[in-house]
């Protein structure tokens, strides 16, 4: 690991200011992704800013019935919170499907959002990667790409975002709160946080270099049936090949509200509001589910080894929605 200097920040604004003063610095919270990448020489920070003691480790109820989740709330604490389990079980389910218990005990809400891709070629410093070394090429495009994107990819990058939590937050319409070195705060809809790769896959979010995530807010509970279905190579402790987050609300036999978000498909948690609206007013049966899948996958494109993700996603969507209908 390369040498770096280290400081402990006392307030969120001080942490953002320290970042502005140290180009090449990184914030460190749980560290479970950053240290892994530093050991492999993929991340090379010259300065680390410890943000663990900023008092951002609480989950607070909001007047509108929503929740404010501090950036430093650990994944295991968020999954176990009684209000989350009761009102947003989708979020608990997504968190519990990710990583191992040891990692969830350390990984934070903000860190989970900002984790980097697990693309094999991003991790292999002997191979070209436009995300790691802009302009060097993409070894995944013609390589072993079974875990890679089928939507929203570019000629420069076909990696996927690896978070389960972010998929649930996308379905729940969470907002991300930040502070900058100037002290300015802003709220970013989760839909706008992550960028698709385009010609700059190294730029993964809309955050400014000195912008620190301080928390995530959830609107009031949506109700309905909430399911997170994750398909992976082993039953536990593996990243998603595809995942489906579903919220289905019905009156009688009729679907009155539906949210669908997907993991393992793209460089950001994927959602297609037009596609999910095709469930509204239907009984959620096979015909309606096919209509959703048709629209969702209209632009899907495999790269060889990951062609299987297209039919796999269709089947997983069917299975998840069928379960949601049975459960109501």
């Amino acid at each position, binding site marked *: *690991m390369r040498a770096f200097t*280290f400081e*402990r920040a006392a307030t969120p604004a001080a942490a953002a200011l320290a970042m502005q003063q140290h180009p090449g610095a990184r914030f460190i919270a749980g560290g479970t992704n950053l*240290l892994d990448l530093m050991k492999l020489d993929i991340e090379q920070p010259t300065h680390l800013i410890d943000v663990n003691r900023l008092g951002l480790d609480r989950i607070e109820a909001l007047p509108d019935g929503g929740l404010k989740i501090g950036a430093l709330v650990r994944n295991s604490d968020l999954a*176990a919170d009684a209000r989350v389990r009761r009102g947003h079980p989708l979020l608990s389910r997504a968190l*519990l499907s990710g*990583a191992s218990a*040891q990692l969830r005990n350390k990984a934070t809400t903000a860190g989970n959002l900002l984790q980097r891709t697990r693309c094999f070629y991003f991790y292999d410093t002997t191979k070209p990667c436009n995300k790691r070394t802009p302009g060097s090429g993409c070894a995944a495009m013609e390589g072993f790409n079974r875990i890679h994107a089928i939507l929203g990819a570019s000629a420069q990058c076909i990696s996927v975002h690896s978070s389960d939590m972010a998929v649930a937050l996308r379905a729940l319409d969470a907002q991300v709160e930040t502070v900058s070195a100037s002290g300015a705060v802003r709220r970013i809809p989760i839909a706008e946080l992550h960028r698709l790769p385009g010609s700059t896959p190294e730029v993964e979010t809309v955050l400014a270099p000195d912008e620190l995530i301080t928390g995530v807010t959830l609107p009031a509970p949506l109700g309905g049936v909430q399911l997170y279905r994750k398909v992976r190579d082993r039953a536990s402790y593996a990243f998603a090949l595809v995942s489906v987050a579903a919220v289905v609300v019905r009156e009688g036999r009729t679907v009155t509200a539906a949210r669908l978000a997907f993991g393992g498909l793209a460089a950001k948690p994927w959602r297609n509001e037009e596609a999910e609206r095709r469930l509204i007013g239907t009984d959620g049966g096979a015909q309606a589910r096919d209509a959703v899948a048709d629209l969702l996958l209209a632009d899907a494109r495999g790269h060889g080894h990951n062609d299987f993700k297209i039919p796999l996603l269709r089947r997983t969507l069917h299975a998840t929605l069928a379960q949601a209908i049975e459960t109501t």
Partner: protein
Amino acid sequence: MNPETPDGYTRRTVLVTGAAGVAAAALPLAVDAEPVAHDAAAQGPTTDVSLRINGQLHALSIDPRVTLLDLLREQLHLTGSKKGCDHGQCGACTVLVNGRRINSCLTLAVLHEGDQVTTIEGLGEPKKLHPMQAAFVKHDGYQCGYCTPGQICSAVGMLGEMRGGMPSHVTHDLSAPTVFSSEEMRERMSGNICRCAGYPNIIAAIREVAGVAT
């Protein structure tokens, strides 16, 4: 745990001596090798950190790159915690920090100012085993033993999580009390790999400590 043999050798001294013998035998082959530049060996700034390990307070000034695992093993010579993958994938380095299990390889020691760390050495001793250690011995919860300290620390942390009502991926009802089933324990122990595949006996040991009929 470092039981001595009757002639005063520990398993560790035998291993270290054996490794040195191999290195000496291989020495002539290495004469032409260029010295390898290790950035890690460069002297950099140090950071102060105070933390309590197995009840003992340590006030240190260390290179901020030092992981908690390397602090334990290389500087404090608490070699029970093992370095398997060094990337959070195998769980051999699992320790308890403020009572919660984490991968000590994926955290920096300087991030643990004021924390309480418990390693396998702090759980029990050969003459006074922790119930989880005793259960692993009784049920043969290991073969080569390399993953065992991590398995035991993880199992102790896991029972704390289950008793605290933390759900898991296989919890059927998020609002119901925790079920102490083998299915739950296997899912919750998935961060600890055993390449000897001693899993059935590991689960048997944990079930006994959890008070579940085996």
